[in-house]
């Protein structure tokens, strides 16, 4: 098959798969759509079986790592860690929405960094919503904060975001080196968000003083916190002891799930669901589809566009291009396309790519192609989301966060 035709076909399949993933029609899951797309591309010869094997064996450990982290987060939920955090925020806020926002920032950033953005969006956000409702204050600034930090705080660790796991695998950095280099950029991105949020929601965060009853100090569940702490220690020591971090994640997942199974607090089926098999298949299928596009000329095109140097202007350009790309097609496919090229160029470009694909989505969340679909959904739901306000908050935070994080990455690389 001619490269041009194969590339066009792969891009059409990619667009269709993303369309299914966003629109979520009841008769077709995204995992099935991605699998059909991948098989179709193999059958027509757009991608060879050996390339498929390479793509799958590259992605396999990453997907396993992801599954282990999802199981750990799910175990934390089962043991009540997120509810305890809600109680902690309510107590710390002392009835002040401004203080609540500060607590939400700290906890949402920590949950995102350690347990991944999925845990923030799926497990923590409902708790924050309920906490604001119980405090009788507008939930809007706090829910916005969770959504933004799910992206901005997901720079810190390889486990914070699937995009990081993909780049971590490709970059050959150690876990601690990755965290060292991304610590300052994370602080910068979160700091920019906090400053902008305080101003943007200044009116929503002020309210007349009334005596508020202070909730009791919550009991933090010790077991999941201990498992998390030990897993993180394992990650930190992984390069010293010469064991891949994925094995510490697996051990953490086992520690969270086996006791629950033994005490019949969770069924095997519920645990299997907690690892989101459909999502893992979707990632693998998407990997093959992107491989078909990359192998037929997309990688050359990316190489032509993406700067390969590690100077500050190069890194800023990489971050900006990655952010734009993530907003065009969603950050997962963007990462699959950009990371192999960026990783070949070195540590600076690959981490700058991550800054772009992780922070960038705060402009549109789902990618602008998908936003078209999303707007239709919004209209159907008869909601009062002000799209202008949503976009203005993105426009105020994203460019500033991108620049601040990239400059600090550049400094961290110099040291």
């Amino acid at each position, binding site marked *: 098959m001619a490269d041009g035709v194969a590339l066009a076909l792969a891009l059409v399949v990619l667009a269709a798969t*993303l369309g299914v*993933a*966003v629109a979520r029609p009841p008769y077709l*899951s*995204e*995992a099935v759509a*991605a699998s059909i797309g991948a098989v179709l591309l193999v059958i027509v010869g757009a991608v060879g079986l050996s390339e498929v094997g390479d793509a799958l064996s590259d992605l396999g450990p990453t997907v396993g790592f992801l599954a282990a982290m999802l199981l750990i987060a799910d175990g934390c*939920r089962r043991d009540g860690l997120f509810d305890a955090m809600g109680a902690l925020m309510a107590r710390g806020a002392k009835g002040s*929405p401004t203080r609540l926002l500060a607590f939400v920032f700290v906890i949402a950033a920590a949950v995102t960094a350690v347990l991944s*953005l*999925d845990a923030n*969006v*799926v497990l923590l*956000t*409902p708790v924050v*919503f*309920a906490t*604001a*409702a*119980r405090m*009788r*204050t*507008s*939930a*809007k600034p706090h*829910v*916005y904060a*969770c*959504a933004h930090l*799910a992206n901005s705080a997901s720079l810190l660790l390889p486990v914070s975001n699937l995009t990081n796991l993909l780049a971590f695998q490709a970059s050959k950095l150690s876990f601690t080196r990755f965290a060292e280099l991304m610590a300052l950029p994370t602080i910068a991105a979160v700091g920019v968000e906090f400053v902008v949020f305080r101003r943007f929601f*200044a*009116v929503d965060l*002020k*309210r*007349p*003083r*009334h005596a508020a009853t202070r909730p009791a100090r919550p009991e933090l569940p010790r077991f999941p916190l201990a498992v998390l702490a030990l897993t993180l220690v394992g990650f930190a020591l992984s390069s010293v002891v010469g064991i891949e971090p994925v094995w510490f994640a697996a051990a953490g997942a086992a520690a969270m799930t086996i006791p629950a199974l033994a005490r019949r607090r969770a069924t095997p089926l519920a645990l299997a*669901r907690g690892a*989101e098999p*459909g*999502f893992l298949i*979707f*990632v693998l299928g*998407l990997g093959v589809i992107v491989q078909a596009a990359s192998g037929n000329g997309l990688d050359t095109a990316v190489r032509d566009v993406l700067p390969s140097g590690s100077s500050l202007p190069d890194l800023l350009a990489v971050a900006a291009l990655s952010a734009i790309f993530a907003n065009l097609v*969603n950050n*997962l496919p963007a990462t699959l396309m950009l990371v192999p090229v960026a990783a070949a160029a070195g540590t600076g470009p690959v981490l700058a790519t991550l800054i772009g694909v992780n922070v960038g*989505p705060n402009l549109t*969340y*789902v990618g602008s192609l*998908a936003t078209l679909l*999303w707007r239709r*959904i*919004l209209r159907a*739901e*008869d*909601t*009062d*989301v*002000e799209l202008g306000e*949503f976009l203005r908050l993105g426009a105020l935070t994203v460019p500033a966060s991108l620049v601040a994080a990239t400059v600090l990455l550049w400094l961290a690389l110099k040291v």
Partner: protein
Amino acid sequence: MRALVWIIEDTWEDTVDEAAAFLPTDAEVTLLHVASTEPETLARAARRGLLGRQRPPDLEQPLRVISEQAAHDLLADAATRLGRPARLDARRGRVKHEVVAAAEGMDFLVLARDGDRERLGPRSLGPAARFVVDHAPCGVLLIWPDVAPALTTIPPPPPPGTPPPESPPRG
């Protein structure tokens, strides 16, 4: 006299107190709360940004249930604080439109300023209250939560010949 008292989370106590003080004792009072669906939609939008994830529905504590329970509790507390019989009206959706719709057939609407409460001026009305004040099909009693700021918070008039300032961007 039929009076509608629109309460929001942050200022409900002051609104109810003022309504109790100002409305005649024979007024038929309706306490209204409108739950905005905005935070729920935002939370859902962020989830949609996570492509490919599917959670079984039983894991998801539906935000709508939380929101409806909170609104129910708030209205009940407001009724107790008001200290006289009142009809309770819990709605959800586009807040400002729902309030205007609920005000139909009323003689009076009581509401609180929902903007900048530090100084007198147009910014003391947020987008929702501004819309409601502009479109209310009845009389309006607009209260200051806490105490109204001092007159000195009004900036001095511009020197003659200065073009008029633009309207504030966030209403």
